[in-house]
């Protein structure tokens, strides 16, 4: 066995083995580090899952309770106000509200998970295998995994009871939810930095949260709003995503308001800004000191 080196020399069999090893070493060590990162993220996810749900009697069932009660509460209000009138689209208000709420929840839960993951998890950075991005990725994956389960169970129940049909185009379900969650990542980073750097941000944030809650289309269809209002509502990317998600379930509903490029572009911009802000202020975030 002989091999020619780059400079034309010939090396022996032992040298070949060394050369092959040298060639594959980066690949092997890369595969190893990917495996280690996977192990760490998995361990972090299970740890956080146990911390969030493990010590309660009902366990993960707690994840279902808030959306269940929220939907039930607003369905009750819908029923009382509209005196039995049907939901804006479809026959039943429950799936209509649930879709809006779930879409918003993909944004809000991920946002909360990302914004708090460094504060809650920084003590774990003392383990040399745990890197900052592992904390973020674990927080994102756990929030999304729980929401996917909750969402699937809710929708399966609605479909089972014949309240909404099975979605025909799954991209209309997956894409808006994915964009909502990634929007949560970007805003989560920005929120974490601003709450550290801007005095009184908590107050501003509360107001923003309320505005987002009211304008994200939990209770209305954008097309049904006055045109002057629609012009303002256009700037809330989550409303677009709500309309997008609903168009996946209500086969005869096609939103005129929806502009898929806007939430997508908004999400990418916020994500870029968020990553940059997190990287620049990471030392401050780790110190956790309000300045």
């Amino acid at each position: 066995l002989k091999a020619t080196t780059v400079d034309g020399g010939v090396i022996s069999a032992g040298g070949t083995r060394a050369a092959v090893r040298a060639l594959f070493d980066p690949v092997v060590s890369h595969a190893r580090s990917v495996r280690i990162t996977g192990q760490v993220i998995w361990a972090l996810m299970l740890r956080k899952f146990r911390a969030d749900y493990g010590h309660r009697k009902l366990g993960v069932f707690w994840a279902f309770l808030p959306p269940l009660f929220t939907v039930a509460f607003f369905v009750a209000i819908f029923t009382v106000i509209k005196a039995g009138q049907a939901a804006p689209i479809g026959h039943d208000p429950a799936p209509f509200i649930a879709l809006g709420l779930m879409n918003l929840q993909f944004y809000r839960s991920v946002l909360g998970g990302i914004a708090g993951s460094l504060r809650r998890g920084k003590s774990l950075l003392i383990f040399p295998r745990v890197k900052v991005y592992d904390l973020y990725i674990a927080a994102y994956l756990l929030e999304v995994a729980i929401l996917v389960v909750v969402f699937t169970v809710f929708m399966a129940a609605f479909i089972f009871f014949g309240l909404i049909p099975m979605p025909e185009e799954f991209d209309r379900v997956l894409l808006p939810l994915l964009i909502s969650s990634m929007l949560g990542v970007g805003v989560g980073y920005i929120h974490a930095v601003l709450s550290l750097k801007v005095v009184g941000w908590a107050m501003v944030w509360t107001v923003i949260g309320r505005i987002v809650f009211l304008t994200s289309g939990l209770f209305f269809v954008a097309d049904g709003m006055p045109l002057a209002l629609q012009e303002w509502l256009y700037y809330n990317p989550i409303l677009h995503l709500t309309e997008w998600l609903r168009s996946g379930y209500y086969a005869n509903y096609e939103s005129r308001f929806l502009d898929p490029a806007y939430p997508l572009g908004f999400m990418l911009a916020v994500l870029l800004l968020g990553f940059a802000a997190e990287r620049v202020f990471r030392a401050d975030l780790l110190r956790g000191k309000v300045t």
Partner: protein
Amino acid sequence: VIRLRNASKVRESGAGSRVVLDTVSAVLPRGRSIAILSRTPGAASCLFDLFAGATELDSGSIRVDASISWPLGRKAHPFKSMTIRDAATFVARMYGQDTARVVAFLRDFAEIGNSIDKRFSRESHDVRTRVQLALALSIEFDCYLLESLTLHRNPAFQAKVWEALGERLAGGASLIVGGSRQTRPLIKACDMGVVLVNGEMMIYDDIREAVRAFKATSARRSVTAPMRLEGHPA
């Protein structure tokens, strides 16, 4: 191997900020037991934080090419309100180990009896330290980071830990030891030394030389540099 390139770090604490590293470029070799000698308060701990990735450099880069343990012998623990069993499971998963084996090792080594399902934060300092040491020893690291040579107040347990560490050292592992109150035991435990003075890092291949240099610098320091008073808590 730990490589520092133009590394700078100022450690900020309640008692003011102190320079730990000032554009240091250095290589700490693999397979050697290294003592970190410094009179800057918290300098060794800060260095360990940097090795472990718990804090970031202000500038420059650090690269750790070895499987190092987390710093052992600290009061603070990362497990917060996890149960001891959960902590063991977490560590085992993170290092790709069999969780049952790690829990069994922990039970056997730490001698904590029925405390295994209790919350970490509710346990005494004694138990927490036992668990941390047992967990670190349940994983085969290339290098163990020790905040000081005294790892546990209980002499029997201290001896047990050092017996286990001795086996690891015989198997090719190494130590990095911080804390420099007593240099005599350090000379026994380590074979080379790093002296940190005013952000400068000097590496000595022989631990005796390092200790000598350390004593000299600290003596000079006491003459030339007065106590820092800025930001001192009233």
